[in-house]
Each structure stands twice: as C-alpha cells, then as structure tokens.
C-alpha cells in the first residue's frame, strides 16, 4: 500500500504529540499510556501492535475523546487532525467541534462486532443517522446513501439488509455494517481497533481485503490495531510497537520485519509461526518469557528489563530509555540499540 511521496507538501492527516493518558482509579492515578508520538499521511496505514494491555485501545479511544471524562481520566498532549484545510487539536477542542469531527472526519471501528451495534435499530437506520447528522440529508436520502454504503462494503441484497436488525446478521456482516457506518461521511481517518479479532480466519481476510480496497479508492488514512503480525505485513506502511503503555519501536514495515532492533519487537516476531521455517518444526514457538508489568508497578529503568535477554544491569535499570532515531523513520527505545544494530549487521 505504499505510494510515491507526491503529497509531501500537504500536512499529515494526523499528528500525535506526546500523548499521555492517566486513569484516576481508587488505587490512585495510573499512567496507562505515555510518550505516544506518530504521524500518518493520506492513504497511509499505521499498524499498532503490542501485547494485551499495552494501551492500544486506550490510545485509539483517547484520540476521539471516547474515554470516560475529566475526573476519571486525564489526557495530555496533542492530537492534531487536518480537515477542511485546517488543523484541530482533538485533545483541547470544544465538545461541539469534537462532535462535528467524530464520524465526519475521523471514524472508529471496534473489536466487538456483536455488541457494537444498537440492538433496537436497523442497520440502515444506524448508518443513516450519521449521514443525517453530518451531511444534512433527509431521512429518505440518507437511507438511500446507507444502502449504497452497504453495497460498497460487499453486503449482498443491501436494500433488505438495511432493514435488518443486528441480531439477524452474522459477526462478519455486522463488522461490514460497522465499516459502512465508519465510512458513511467519507472521513479522512479511520481507526480500526482489532476489527477482525472476533471473526474467523476467512472472514478476517475478506474484511482486510475490503479495507485495502476502500483505502485504494479513497486515500483514507488508517490506524490498524492488531495482535496479528501476519496482518501487519499485509496492510501496514508503518508499524508502531507498544509495550507497557509506550511505543518502543516505530519503523516502516519492511524495516521492522528485516531489522527489528528493540528486543521486545524481536521477541514478538520470533513468536509468529512460520511455515517455511522447517528447522523449528515440532518445537514450541519461542514465547517472550514473563508477563507484561502492571502500569501500577513499572520496573525501574527500561520497562521491558525483567523480560529482556539483552538486559545489562547498570545500564538498562539506570533510567528510562528515550526513543531515538537509528535510521530515517526508524525509532527505537532501548539503551543498547546501537549494540544490537551492530550485531544484527554482522549476522
């Protein structure tokens, strides 16, 4: 999905600067996410990967301000969205501005297709509602547009499906409805939070194909959150790996797969089954030892330290490593990335 850098002059669709999220729980404030920085251009796909609990969903919800409000949760940093020739900071803009952007310029598709649609309204009504809200169309015209969208996302017999309730559809079909809903007003950014995790493999492939097709047609910028590194290789232009609430490695997709530098990323890549790798047949897949630390009790220094094979006492536990650029577009958060880079060059 990479394309020639023709729009270099245009500002990126989305720029995220120092995004940090703190939940004020009963046990005190919990910093769930910090130091998130990335940008994404038109037609580009950024994949966010990381273990469960690494803060992927929280990050995506925070971008559209869908987390619980002020006393429960604090969000800081900037989320700059370009639309209509201007940039709006989604962290600080007014509620009215936010509502004008949600569903219109930036949309989101959730992980759970079974519960993300309202059970008492038909698919068509739910899509049409967004169109009426943002496009100022009447009920009838909005419904016609909704039917077109259902057709676009590959739902057979869209006219009668528009009158169906969510419980009358399969999971895959509901996720298509969710995608139609997200694309209803032709947004410039789509956030897809594990859109295929709840679906079976063939349906997964179809949904991913659909998203690629739509992107090719509309120049949509996509943030694709997933556990599945196979999917990442398939859809992404850039990858951001998250660990314990922070990005630990950001790189163009080819770079990341060829030359992963952060030990955590390397662990992730090694734990992907590879059919061609016959030497390891019959052997268990190497998993990263240990578990993700709780955001309440992050280890001193590098948060990956206790699980890291490269851990060097005195260096790694001395201070939190900063994200540093090792190559153009390839950033790593690791005290020892230079060493690792040299060793991987020798191999």
């Amino acid at each position: 999905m990479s394309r020639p850098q023709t729009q270099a002059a245009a500002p990126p669709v989305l720029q995220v600067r120092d995004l940090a999220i703190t939940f004020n729980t009963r046990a005190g404030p919990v910093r769930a996410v910090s130091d998130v920085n990335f940008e994404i251009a038109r037609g580009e796909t950024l994949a966010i990967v990381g273990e469960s609990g690494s803060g992927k969903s929280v990050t995506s919800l925070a971008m559209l301000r869908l987390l619980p409000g002020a006393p429960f949760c604090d969000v800081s940093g900037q989320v700059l969205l370009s639309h209509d020739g201007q940039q709006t900071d989604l962290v600080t803009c007014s509620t009215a501005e936010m509502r004008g952007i949600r569903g219109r310029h930036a949309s989101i598709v959730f992980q759970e297709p079974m519960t993300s649609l309202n059970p008492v309204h038909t698919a068509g009504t739910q899509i049409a509602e967004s169109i009426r809200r943002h496009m100022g169309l009447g009920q009838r015209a909005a419904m016609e547009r909704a039917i077109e969208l259902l057709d676009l996302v590959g739902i057979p017999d869209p006219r009668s499906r528009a009158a169906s309730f969510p419980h009358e559809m399969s999971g895959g079909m509901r996720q298509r409805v969710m995608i139609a809903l997200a694309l209803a007003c032709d947004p410039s950014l789509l956030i897809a939070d594990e859109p295929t995790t709840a679906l079976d493999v063939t349906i997964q492939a179809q949904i991913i194909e659909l998203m690629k097709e739509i992107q090719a047609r509309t120049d949509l910028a996509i943030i694709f959150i997933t556990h599945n590194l196979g999917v990442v290789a398939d859809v992404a232009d850039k990858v951001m790996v998250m660990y314990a609430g922070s990005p630990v490695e950001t790189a163009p997709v080819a770079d990341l797969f060829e030359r992963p530098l952060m030990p955590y990323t390397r662990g992730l890549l090694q734990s992907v089954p590879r059919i061609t790798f016959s030497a390891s047949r019959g052997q268990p897949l190497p998993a990263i030892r240990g578990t993700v630390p709780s955001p309440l009790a992050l280890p001193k220094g590098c948060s990956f330290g206790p699980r890291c094979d490269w851990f060097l006492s005195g260096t790694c536990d001395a201070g939190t490593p900063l994200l540093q650029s090792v190559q153009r577009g390839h950033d790593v958060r690791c005290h020892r990335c230079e060493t690792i880079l040299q060793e991987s060059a020798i191999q």
Partner: protein
Amino acid sequence: MTRFLIVRLGQSLLLLWIVSIVGFAILHLAPGGPMSQFAEAGNMTQADMDRMAEQLGLNRPLPLQYVQWLSNIVVGDWGVSYRDQQPVLRIIFSHLGATFELMLASTLIAIFIGVWVGVLGAVWRYSLFDSVATIFAMVALSIPTFWFGLVVIWFFSIELGWLPAGSRMTPGDGSFMNRVHHLIGPALVLALVSTAIWSRYMRSSMLDVINQDYIRTARSKGISEWRILTRHALRNALLPMITILGLQLPNLLSGALVTETVFSWPGMGRLFLDSINYRDYPTVMGILMFTAILVLIGNLIADILYGLADPRIGGRAR
C-alpha cells in the same frame, strides 16, 4: 408462540388452584364466621340460624365446601354475597372502575417520575442528585402506606385544606375536575412505593445500557448526548421495565387495599376489607380469585409486549 401460550395457561391454572386452596383454608380456619355476624345482628332465632347455615352449606365438612365452591366457580358461578344478596361478580365489577382509576393514575405518576429520576441518576452517577434520589427512594420504600396516607390527609386536607380528605367525588358533583381533585391524594400515596421501585430499577437498567459498546458507537458518530440518551439508551433501558410493570401489579393491588381504606375510596381494596370483616366468604374468595387472574393476565401481557418491543425476541418490532 402458541406453545408458549399453552404452557403459560397451564401454569396459570395451576397457580390459581393453589391460590384458591390457600385462600379458602385461611378464610375458613380464621376464628369467627358468617353465623356470628348474624348472631350479632340479634334478630334471628337459633332455629333460623341453623336453617341458614344448612342453606349456605356452612355446616358441611370444609373439603366438601371447597369442592362445592370450586365446581361452581369453574362453570362461572361466583356465588352470591352474604351481605346484600348480590352476585359476587356484579359487586366486583361495580368496584373495579374506582380501583383501576387509582392504579392507572398512580402508575402514570410512578413511571413518569421514576423513569426520569432513574435515568438522570444513572447519567449523573454519584452526583448530589443521585445521592439524594437514592436516599429518597430508600425512605419511600420504608414508609408504611397507611401512615403516609394519614400524613397526606393531615397535611394537605386538614392543615392546608387543599385536597379533599377522602371518597371519589363530592356527592352531587362528579365533574371531571372534581374527580381529579379527589384522585390526587390517594394517587400520590399509592404512587410513592412504585416510584421508588421504578427509579431504582430504571437506574440500574440505564447504568447497564450506558456502558454498552453500542453507546460508544453512537458517541463515535458525533451525535449529541441528548440524542444518545433518548434514541439509543432509553429504549434499551426501558425494555426490561415492561416486565417490571407486570411484576408491580400485586404490589399495586395490595397498596390500593390500604390506600382505598385510608381515603375511603370505593374500590375493590376497601370492598375486600369490608367483606372480610363481615365474613362474606363468597365475595372475599371472588375478589381473591379475580385479582389473582388480573395479576396473571397482567404478567402475560407484559411478556407479550416485551416480545413485541424487543426485536431480538419473537417477531419484528414495527
């Protein structure tokens, strides 16, 4: 649907049968009886009374009396009141209107106030409003109805003189406004407990709904909070309330009994108490069976309505 109805019918008949046995036993085993009423009246000889007891079948063994009563009611003969020799069903129907009027008015009040208090309590959870509403609901649930009725009469009728102290209308008036004026007091008293119950159920139902994924989806479309509340949350939260409506019926009926007595409201509740005092067995049993049937039908209707309102159950909602 047919199968469901048949099963429900069977269950209902069984239940009615049990209610009739228990009711009959309690009524007849309680000390005193119709004959002592006649004796108190003092204008009958012992021979008259024996003949009367014989006629009414009161000197036969209890199980036989029960079987007699049951076989009559099965063929639609609800018996004749001891008090004024009127057919029981006719007496019940002549008191039904007043009770329905009272129940309807108080249910409308309870739903309207209860739903909104519950919804706002859920939306502004742990706010001052929510805490105050919670305390009020707890207080309302623990106030005895008769006591609250007396307080309302004392305050609004005697102290302030705003409301009439009882009965359904001023004799000789009976205009709509006059009836409404008389209805306010008892309707408020009867509504108190149901309002509290509605607000609690509504709050928890609403809390459940506003944390659902589809509410987040609605929010991600950029529609207003008001529209999310009314279009997306309220309808889902109200669905289980339909069942509460059915379950509330017995509560409402027993509340009506007390309220009607306190406010001298000429309804079924007061008739029931009067009939018990008079040991008017046919009327007491008649009212008991009638209200039991009412409750069962009410719950059946609630279940059917629930099926119609929820697209996931039964047919389509439209």
